[in-house]
Every structure is written in C-alpha cells, then in structure tokens.
C-alpha cells in the first residue's frame, strides 16, 4: 500500500528524474557532452541539419547563378567587341598589304559623318590638311576604290564616293584589257560606259582602275561585270557592274598619298 509520502514522490518522480539528468549533463565533462551531442546530431537532429545545409546550398546556388549571369553578359559584350576588333584588324591588314605594294603612302581614316553637301554623295573622314591630305587624292578601302578627296579642311576631309554621278573613273577589264569609264547611274547602279559593241567583255570579269586620268593608281578593284547587253544600232555596250566596295558599310578607308620617290 502506498503511503502519503510515496504517492507524493510518485507524483513528482518525473520531475526529479529530469532534474537529476539535467544536472548530470551539466556536470559531465566535455568528452561526454560531445559524445551525446554527436549521438543527437546523427539521430534526432540529422534531418533538420540536412535540410538546413540543403537550403544554404540552394541560396548559394541562387547567388552564384546571379553572378554567373552577370559574368556571361559581360563576356558576351567583350566577345562582341573583340570580334569587331578582329574584323577591323583583318580589314586594315588587307589594306596595308595593298598599300605596301604601290608607290603610294596610305593615310588611314575613319568615316566620321555624312556629306555636308546635300547634292553630293560623299562622306566625312577623320583626317585633313594637317595629315597631308590634298584635294583629288584617291580613297580606297580593303575591298577597292571608294572615291576621291573632294574638299579638305584642317582636321577633316570630304570624300566624294563612286556612287556620285559626278565621279567617273577610268577602268580596264582585267582579263580582256578593254578600256572604259565607270559611272554611277541612278537606279541602274554602277555601269561601264564607252565600251564599243565589238569588244569582248563578259559577266564575271573583274574591272580595275586603269591608272589613266592621273588620280587613281592602276590595279585597284572597282567591281565585277554582272550584265552585258548589246542593243541594235547602239555603238557602245550596256554593261552593269557589282561594285567591289559596299558603300553602305564603310568604316575605315585609306587615302593614298603619292610617295616622294
């Protein structure tokens, strides 16, 4: 039979046990504490700790993802700039190789603006009188003839393009050596004039500068024949050309200045 004190002890037994256990844990050494903590970590606490690590990894991934996206954007921009630089390098090397083989000195120039004259198909370039540029100097690109210097200012110059109807050019068929005059004629584009009907020219023939006229040196690319027509009663052939230079995409040009030799 339980006595009153036994019943009271029984009621508070759990409390006493909890207190004794807690005090025992408090009083235990570091080794015992660490051992018990390890047991708790690997059993009861393991799922929570694993979840915590996973959440931390996800948030790190998110941060890393943001940083990588930013890096990709920067690298894409850099890559684009480098590709542009590579293309420019190629064009200028090509131009430089041509200039070295002639008796001309090439002055590089960038296209900086459109024509200041409304009735002139021309562009503004970044070199002028102080760079030794003079009127009527030939202007070329890595692909061929562009035009000639029309007007010279101190730091800039106006270059009239071959697309201007008032900029004719004496040329020669590279294969057949037939002479002619290249002009730009409105909707027809680049045409080759003054080729007699009996002369032999064919589509695909390369047209180069003839050196006549005293402005352009011989051998500069002008264009390729695309169409040849001989009409009855006409003394000259009607010849259309595809220009060697894309006048809509001009960025750098060379102004040819004759060397002293």
């Amino acid at each position: 039979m339980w006595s009153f004190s036994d019943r009271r002890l029984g009621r508070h037994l759990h409390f006493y046990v909890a207190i004794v256990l807690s005090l025992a844990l408090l009083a235990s050494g570091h080794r015992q504490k660490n051992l018990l903590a390890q047991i708790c970590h690997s059993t009861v606490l393991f799922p929570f700790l694993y979840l915590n690590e996973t959440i931390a990894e996800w948030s790190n991934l998110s941060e890393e993802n943001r940083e990588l996206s930013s890096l990709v954007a920067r690298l894409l921009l850099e890559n684009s700039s480098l590709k542009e630089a590579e293309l420019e390098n190629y064009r200028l090397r090509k131009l430089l190789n041509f200039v070295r083989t002639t008796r001309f000195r090439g002055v590089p120039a960038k296209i900086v603006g459109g024509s200041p004259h409304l009735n002139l198909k021309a562009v503004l370039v970044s070199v002028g009188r102080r760079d030794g540029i003079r009127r009527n100097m030939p202007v070329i690109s890595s692909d061929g003839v562009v035009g000639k210097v029309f007007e010279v200012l101190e730091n800039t110059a106006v270059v009239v393009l071959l697309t201007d109807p008032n900029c004719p050019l004496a040329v020669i068929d590279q294969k057949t050596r037939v002479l002619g005059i290249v002009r730009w004629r409105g909707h027809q584009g680049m045409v080759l004039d003054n080729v007699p009907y009996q002369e032999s020219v064919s589509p695909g023939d390369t047209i180069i500068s003839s050196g006549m006229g005293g402005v352009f040196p011989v051998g500069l690319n002008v264009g390729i024949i695309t169409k040849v027509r001989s009409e009855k009663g006409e003394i000259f052939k009607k010849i259309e050309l595809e220009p060697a230079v894309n006048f809509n995409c001009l960025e750098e040009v060379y102004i040819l200045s004759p060397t002293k030799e």
Partner: protein
Amino acid sequence: MLGGGLHPIANQRVSAAALVLILIVVTLAYQINLRERIEAFGGTPDLNIILLVFLSLSYGRGAALSFGFLGGLFLDALAPHFLGATALLGSVTGYLLGSLKAKLLIENPWVRAGISVAIFCLWEVCLILLYPSSSPGSFGNYLGGQLFPCAVYTYLAALLFFWIFQKRGEASS
C-alpha cells in the same frame, strides 16, 4: 482521436504525448532552419519558451515537463558546451508553471505573452550566471543589441500565437 479504444484519461495522455512530440519537431525545425532567416534588428523570437508556456498553461505540468526537458536537451545538443542547461531550465519552468495551471487559469493572450517574455529574460540571466565566461562583453551592448530585440520579438510572436490559439478555441466551442 488518438488511441480511440483507451480509457479517456489514457487517451488524453496519448494525445498530450503526441502533441509534445510534434511541438518538439516544430521547435527543432524552427531553431535550426528558420530562426536565423527571420532575424530583425538583431533579435529573433524564442519559440521554445512560447510553446513551453502554451503547454504549461493549457495541458499542465506533465506535458510541459516532457517538452521542457526533451526540447531543451535537443536544443542544447546544437551547442554541446551548454548541454543540460536548457534542459534544466525547461524542466523546472515547465513543471512549476504547469503546476500553477489550475490556479492561474490565464486565458488572456497579452498576459501569456508577458509570461513568455518574463521567462525568456529569466533564462538569459540564469544562463549568464551558469556560464559567466560566455557572457557578452559589454552589458549595455548585450541589453540593447540582443536581449531587448529578442524580448520584443518574442513578445510579439507569443502574442500572435496565443491570440490565434484563443480564436481557434472560441471558434471550436
């Protein structure tokens, strides 16, 4: 209801035991996974104490003692140096407060929240006394930078918890 074929008292005990286990899981999940992420002005609410007060005043000393001891033990395992401290404080607090459940009959959420904050401050003092070498350097910085924000945060969280519990109780009755 759990243990549907048991004696009503045994049924009640099984329900209380299940509730204690669930609340221990909740406390551990909060303490390990969530607490650091909801820090505001240097403070976080102490869910362990809030749930201990809840169990003490709603379910009595048995459930509160179990929760206080086991919950405290597992929380201490996260910082082995303090192993046993929270278990001791939880056991004593849960048992004493649970013993007063019949006499206090406190339903007001404001008062329950106030009790939670008082217990929180008392525990902090006890821990400083138990581990003086781990005390924060400047008491002023500790008071303003840690104790006060945690106390405020705990009070607000406890108030919300007990208010929701009261509304739920009113709705079910």
